[in-house]
């Protein structure tokens, strides 16, 4: 599998564990997982990038496709455990202004008001 997505719940936060690469080939699967969260009214998403090899602009587009809906519903998308190279993709385009990135899962949960 080039991309594996596993979801788990921690309080009212949905943690999305991503393994592999998000590129133009795998992005449909990522979009589907995000859309499913919207359908389930899971508006607080923490994307755990611990095993994310790389994300291309296709993956950033998928996030931009749902963020407005999520924010309108009082939620947010945050990321954690990004590698230096994944962080740099977000940072270099200014996406860190829109998506907070945390060093650990615990910090990400704390930012959503969980795990305090």
């Amino acid at each position, binding site marked *: 599998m080039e991309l594996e997505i596993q979801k788990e719940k921690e309080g009212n936060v949905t943690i999305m564990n991503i393994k592999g690469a998000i*590129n133009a*080939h795998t992005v449909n699967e990522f979009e589907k997982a995000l859309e499913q969260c919207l359908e389930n009214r899971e508006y607080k998403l923490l994307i755990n990038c611990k095993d994310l*090899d*790389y994300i291309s602009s*296709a993956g950033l587009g998928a996030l931009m*496709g749902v963020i407005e809906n999520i924010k309108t519903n009082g939620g947010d998308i945050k990321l954690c455990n990004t590698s230096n*190279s994944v962080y*740099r993709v977000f940072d270099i385009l200014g*996406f860190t202004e829109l998506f907070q990135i945390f060093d650990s899962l615990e910090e990400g949960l704390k930012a959503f008001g969980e795990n305090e």
Partner: protein
Amino acid sequence: MSNNFYLKTTIKANTEYLTLINKLTVDICNLLGFNEEDAKNISLAVDEAVTNTIKHAYKMDSEKEIDIEYFTKKDELTIEISHTGIPISPDKLIFPDMKEYLEKYKKGGLGIMLMIKFMDSVEYGSENGKHFCKLTKKIN
């Protein structure tokens, strides 16, 4: 190894090759002495250039072929992605205002931004009936 390195590969215009090309590019960059971060950045730029070729030059026609050539000259790595499809038009080379982009939750057009940010030069052109995107990065 960085002197006169040359490798050419041809893939079908199918996104299923993207991860493979990404790994190949990282390995080549490591071999040439790029640090891990540069290797990942360069491979992402190649991913974006190949994706653009599949989507825009060939309109997702997976029977078409894309040539990818890696070569070094002096202390530079050049990666040339070439095709015989629709050449990129200058109006596609508009760089979004990122402040407005993020405020209005826009989509698309970021691939070329990443290529420009991560490479020393990005050049588009045509030669002998083929159209190319040439990515260059100085070897540390």
